[in-house]
């Protein structure tokens, strides 16, 4: 076995020794990927990982480098970008990605991309 394969095996053993735990955290991430447009919250996501809320947040961050809520926001904003490029209205995008409030969506979108949804949509329609 080459050096690299040995290193992958060594790191896996040392950083992720509990297979069941790894599976549960992955399941919770896949749950977010699939249900991001629904009214999901930390309790529902943590239940997928069979962990208490606070323990789950720590584990998720250890595995993915961000909290479950940050990841959910990233997924929603990435999806919003794709829908905006299809020419949908801000309201349609907002509800399609699971936001119930347009101002909250606009504010988060601007915080994460540096542009308002409308400015992003205009930029994409002008420059492809």
């Amino acid at each position, binding site marked *: *076995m*080459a*050096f*690299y*394969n040995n290193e*992958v*095996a060594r*790191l*896996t053993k040392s*950083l*992720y020794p509990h297979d069941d735990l*790894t599976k549960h*955290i*992955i399941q919770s*991430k896949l749950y977010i990927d699939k249900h991001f447009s629904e009214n999901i919250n930390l309790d529902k996501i943590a239940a997928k990982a069979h962990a208490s809320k606070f323990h789950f947040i720590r584990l998720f961050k250890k*595995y*993915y480098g961000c909290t479950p809520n940050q990841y959910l926001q990233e997924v929603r904003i990435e999806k919003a970008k794709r829908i905006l490029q299809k020419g949908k209205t801000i309201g349609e995008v907002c509800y399609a990605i699971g936001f119930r409030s347009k101002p909250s969506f606009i504010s988060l979108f601007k915080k994460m991309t540096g542009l308002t949804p409308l400015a992003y949509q205009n930029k994409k329609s002008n420059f*492809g």
Partner: protein
Amino acid sequence: MDSDYSIPFIIFAETFTFNIICMKVKWISVLVDDQKKALKFYTGILGFIKKTDVPMGEYSWLTVVSKEEPDGAEVVLEPMGFAPAKIYQKALKDAGIPLTMFHVENVQNEFERLEKLGVKFSMKPTQMGPTTLAVFDDTCGNNIQLIQV
């Protein structure tokens, strides 16, 4: 005395702040031993599409992109014009270290598809925490890693 130095510093700091440029990743380079062979493999087997092919003397400025992101980052299939690069490439290859990695939705599916096309894997799909990895030979002197997050 303090004020003598603080004023120019503040001016410099403000100038610097306004001149910050937002860098983007537009190209990544993959060293290849033969550009024609590389283009065939990267498009015909891996599924990238050719983006640019500009003749530049003995070689070309040759890039490919993902079908799903034709305006995304371009992979430059870069000729080995600098002899020590061959030593570097060989050392990575012998150690099984990937030169770079590409993201796929499902490593297992991609592994099965590529294996049927004759691609040789030095590491079959392997779970590493929340990621799944696999490493294949790009036939141009490199190990390339597939990653699913």
